[in-house]
């Protein structure tokens, strides 16, 4: 039960003082001093998000623009398509897609959100959101691969707030009429209490909701404005992790990394048809082969029997003791009211319902391959 070390060089988000004032327990995460939970605790925060609306500070994430000098979407989209396997060219203005920055061997350097900026005067702009822990490496990688005429512009002056849960649409619509009509994975520029916000109908909880980008200087006012609604409570990184795990969503550095391909990770849905056929992204030969022949191992959901959580690093074996994989994320799912996990297993034991053993503290516990998400997605389609 060691207390987290508070290093002086730890970065703070524009909402840091808000978290401290709310009594959050702060922990170092990806170089930032972040709230892992507020006084009510992870379980309450998790359940509140599933039943009402949770407010998350995710300002530690990297927000950047990729800009084509010739103001052409085609130019900037083609440049990014050299680095990621998703179809960027076909994005409509304000449309968002999930994708991955790929290494030359098809391993995943990071996962990210890509949006075609729709605001007037921004033709040829893409908006990227990348993981906090990877942003410096991502920016260096992207810059090293950009053609002439396309530049990367990281925006340190932006905050990012997620509003997630079944009440999110009603809460935001009160302040930004029309927000409830925004389709999943689409974005818009709106005013909330006179504050500019770029909102997208997306998130990392499996619930309906929004990710809201705003100027750092306005973030605290916006944060307080949302919290004034009794349907909204602040949610820390602890519940963010249990929510995304139940939703079957990957956490970079755990469920996906440079040793895993998007196909092994079950992310083929993020590679649109044209890209699967044409290739033209890093690792395309491997990824096309894995699509055709099937990968040797795949990411699966795993439901341990009983109550004991199996955590990251637990060995996965067959009931007769053959080692077939490893748990990459695992813990307790408050909505499931039991342990849940995900990990990579040999493809021959990846069918839903397959009996497996997870080795927890040296002892095998019975488990089954389970369909993901564990908690059904409730996106606004």
């Amino acid at each position, binding site marked *: *039960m060691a207390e987290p070390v508070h290093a002086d060089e730890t970065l703070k988000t524009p909402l840091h003082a808000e978290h401290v004032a709310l009594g959050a327990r702060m922990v170092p995460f990806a170089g930032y001093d972040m709230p892992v*939970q507020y006084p009510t605790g992870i379980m309450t925060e998790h359940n509140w998000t599933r039943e009402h609306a949770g407010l998350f500070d995710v300002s530690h994430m990297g927000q950047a623009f990729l800009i084509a000098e010739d103001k052409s979407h085609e130019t900037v989209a083609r440049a990014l398509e050299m680095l990621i396997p998703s179809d960027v060219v076909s994005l409509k203005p304000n449309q968002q897609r999930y994708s991955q920055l790929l290494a030359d061997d098809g391993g995943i350097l990071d996962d990210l959100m890509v949006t075609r900026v729709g605001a007037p005067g921004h033709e040829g702009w893409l908006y990227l959101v990348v993981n906090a822990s990877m942003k410096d490496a991502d920016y260096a990688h992207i810059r090293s691969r950009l053609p002439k005429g396309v530049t990367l512009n990281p925006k340190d002056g932006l905050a990012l707030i997620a509003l997630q849960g079944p009440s999110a649409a009603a809460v935001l619509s009160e302040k930004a009429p029309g927000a409830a009509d925004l389709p999943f994975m689409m974005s818009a520029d709106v005013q909330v209490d006179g504050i500019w916000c770029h909102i997208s109908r997306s998130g990392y909880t499996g619930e309906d909701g929004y990710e809201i980008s705003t100027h750092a200087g306005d973030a605290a006012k916006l944060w307080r404005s949302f919290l004034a609604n009794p349907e909204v409570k602040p949610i820390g990184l*602890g519940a963010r992790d249990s929510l995304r795990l139940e939703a079957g969503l990957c956490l970079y550095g755990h469920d996906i990394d440079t040793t895993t391909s998007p196909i092994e990770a079950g992310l083929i849905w993020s590679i649109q048809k044209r890209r699967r056929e044409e290739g033209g992204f890093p690792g395309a030969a491997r990824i096309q082969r894995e699509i055709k022949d099937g990968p040797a191992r795949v990411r699966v959901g795993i439901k341990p029997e009983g109550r004991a959580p199996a955590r990251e690093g637990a060995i996965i074996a067959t009931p007769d003791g053959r080692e077939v994989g490893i748990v990459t994320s695992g813990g307790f799912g408050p909505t499931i009211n039991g342990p849940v996990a995900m990990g990579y297993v040999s493809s021959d034991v990846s069918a839903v319902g397959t009996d497996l053993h997870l080795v927890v503290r040296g002892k095998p516990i019975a488990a089954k391959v389970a369909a993901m998400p564990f908690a059904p997605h409730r996106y606004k389609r």
Partner: protein
Amino acid sequence: MSTRYTKDHEYIRVEGDTAVVGISDYAQAQLGDVVYVELPSVGKALAKGAEAAVVESVKAASEIYAPVSGEVVAVNAELEATPGTVNEDPAGRGWFLKMTIKDAGELDALMSEEQYQEFVKSIS
């Protein structure tokens, strides 16, 4: 009846020939929502400082160490179905195990209630 504490936030409360072991209120608050407790089998011999149990919160697993040497004579089976009892009543219904005390002298090396409260203040 005296309760003694370890620096790892276990308590041990002597009740006649045996002692009740659990975690302090400070420890349960630090852990957050307890979702699983792995208890030793009755009859297991524990050396002072050896792993006696594992308590899991939503976030992480933490080991619970034997405050003194002795043998496990009972475990709190209710924690299997209601692990949250550790949060609600750590000193009472949220106990982990009962054990014999091999060497009462080992208790003297642990903190008194007053010393433990001072210790908690010094680290919070």
